[in-house]
């Protein structure tokens, strides 16, 4: 081992004491910062992952749309059904309607689904809290829970539906009669975009309401696990005819996913300051050490040491503190994350807020997602910051004139 590394270790772990106090405090500082970073990034990642899973669950992986009615969708279905990557495909039509119940109006988005094919893309049945998908026919609809609550409808209620098409008829002075539909189910997916103000009908009913003449608005695809949706979408875009385009869920929710990532990055940016403060602690402690050890530094040069080796000696101390702090921080964070639900519920019990937790945050379990990339970025940042922190004191030591250092009182 080169002498400067040896001496660096000895200064951290002196022969006469087991450990230096400064070292302990510095390591703790780095550890805390890294720990918080790992916990927050993992939980943020967990939320992100939960949302991404929900998006895929409620949307499928890919949608093929053309911006207008698609009449030859059967060809598309035949084509994608033949693709090995595709697990399921289902056509749909969507739009907005006016819904009324008890004189309470709402303007939900409506999706007409192929009851036979839909389960292979979106497990609608699993989302139903009341009713059954089997009961969905051309005279009934499924409402999201929030929508049902807003118009006071429940399972078995009859709701009135007006479509934009009816407005045209109204202009022609026709009598406006709403379509009366039975509520066959109430659903909730846990994905807000889907739960707030939506309803589901059969594809046939939707085609009728929108006068689509057998056309659809798009085809939703679910891919087999592990398939790269972007690759499939690119392939589809090469072979799709007309104005039909394949879009992945990543494209559809690009803005939203970007915000999610931005939030995560902001958290990282804010929390890295804890590590930065720890780095300042290291810098100050090392500066004090350099001043205190002026004579020793002179001595080291007098017995053959070189200034750049002194730089290495001090930088290595910073690096080592960063290294140990990072390791410990990750370890403690993993333990805390492992027991995260016990910790949260223990805390909730202590403050008597357990019910609130479940009611308003809609999670009884805190999600966590361990991304190797997060760990690498956090570790590298901590290591770089702590090593850089030592650079200032190190250069101070190296710049000292040995004769003056030895002379100093």
């Amino acid at each position, binding site marked *: 081992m080169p*002498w400067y590394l040896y001496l660096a270790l*000895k200064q951290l772990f*002196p022969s*006469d004491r087991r450990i230096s106090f400064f070292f302990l405090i510095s390591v703790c500082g780095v550890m805390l910062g890294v720990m918080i970073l790992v916990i927050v990034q993992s939980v943020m990642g967990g939320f992100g992952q939960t949302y991404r899973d929900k998006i895929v669950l409620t949307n499928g992986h890919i949608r093929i749309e053309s911006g207008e009615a698609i009449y030859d969708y059967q060809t598309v279905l035949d084509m994608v059904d033949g693709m090995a990557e595709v697990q399921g495909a289902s056509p749909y039509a969507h739009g907005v309607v006016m819904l009324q119940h008890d004189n309470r109006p709402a303007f939900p988005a409506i999706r007409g689904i192929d009851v036979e094919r839909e389960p292979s893309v979106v497990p609608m049945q699993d989302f139903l809290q009341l009713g059954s998908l089997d009961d969905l026919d051309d005279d009934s609809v499924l409402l999201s829970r929030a929508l049902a609550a807003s118009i006071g409808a429940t399972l078995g209620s009859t709701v009135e539906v007006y479509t934009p098409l009816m407005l045209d008829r109204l202009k022609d002075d026709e009598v406006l009669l709403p379509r009366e539909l039975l509520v066959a189910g109430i659903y909730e997916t846990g994905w807000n975009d889907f739960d707030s103000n939506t309803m589901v009908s059969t594809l046939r009913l939707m085609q009728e309401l929108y006068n689509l003449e057998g056309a659809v608005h798009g085809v939703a695809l679910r891919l087999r696990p592990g398939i790269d949706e972007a690759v499939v979408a690119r392939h589809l875009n090469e072979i799709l005819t007309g104005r039909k385009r394949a879009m992945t869920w990543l494209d559809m929710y690009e803005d939203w996913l970007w915000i999610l990532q931005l939030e995560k990055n902001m958290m990282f940016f804010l929390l890295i300051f804890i590590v930065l403060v720890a780095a300042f602690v290291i810098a100050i402690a090392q500066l004090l050490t350099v001043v205190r050890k002026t004579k*020793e530094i002179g001595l080291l040069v007098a*017995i*053959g040491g*070189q200034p750049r080796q002194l730089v290495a000696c001090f930088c290595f101390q910073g690096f080592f503190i960063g290294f140990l702090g990072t390791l410990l921080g990750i370890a403690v964070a993993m333990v805390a994350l492992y027991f995260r639900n016990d910790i949260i519920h223990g805390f909730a019990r202590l403050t008597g807020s357990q019910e609130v937790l479940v009611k308003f945050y809609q999670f009884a379990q805190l999600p966590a997602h361990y991304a190797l990339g997060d760990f690498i970025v956090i570790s590298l940042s901590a290591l770089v910051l702590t090593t850089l922190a030592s650079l200032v004191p190190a250069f101070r030591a190296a710049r000292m004139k040995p*004769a003056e250092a030895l002379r100093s009182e």
Partner: protein
Amino acid sequence: MNDFGKELQVRQVTKSFVSGGQPIEVLKGVDLTVESGASVSIRGESGSGKTTLLNIIAGLETADSGTVSLNGLRIESLSESKLALVRGKEVGMVFQAYHLIPELDVAENVLLPARIVGLMGRPQRDRALELLKKVGLGDRLHSSPSQLSGGEKQRVALARALMNRPALILADEPTGNLDEKTAKGVIGLIFDICRDENSSLVMVTHNPNFAAKTDRQLLLHNGLLTNIVK
């Protein structure tokens, strides 16, 4: 005169400092030759430049003019890293204030110069032990410097200075912090060991008795070295 061979040659070294805006000429053309294995003592008033001279010889400070050659190597012409190596291998320094590294135990302190020049192994450990035995600290290998008395510390520092079998020992008031009796012991050791190891010795001391033990006694006065006739 021959610049080669195991010896120290100082030729016309001058050095001045600027202190409080005033230039002070400390060394005004110092000449000194120390043959291999010989010992020299330097006396002089406080502030006469003794430490400065030793530092220049060790390459810790650069002379304004003049040359220093050690074993034929011109100190001032060496690169920084080469100079560090020469200092580590050929020069052993002993200071008034021992300058031991507190985090290292006695044996590790003695071994440090070997580590620094990149030689570390069984022979070095044996040598450290042998040196510590010679200075009477063979049983204190793992003591911390803070547990040692002043005399003991200086003996460790002496062992450290000798670790790499330097051709030249520079001792700057090695007994300055010690009482008379302890000082005598340390001085005795310095002479014994330098003789055993055939190292040259340049020692700054204020004590005429210790100075008298060297082959040659010099006085640094007015920036010049002169012989003191016994």
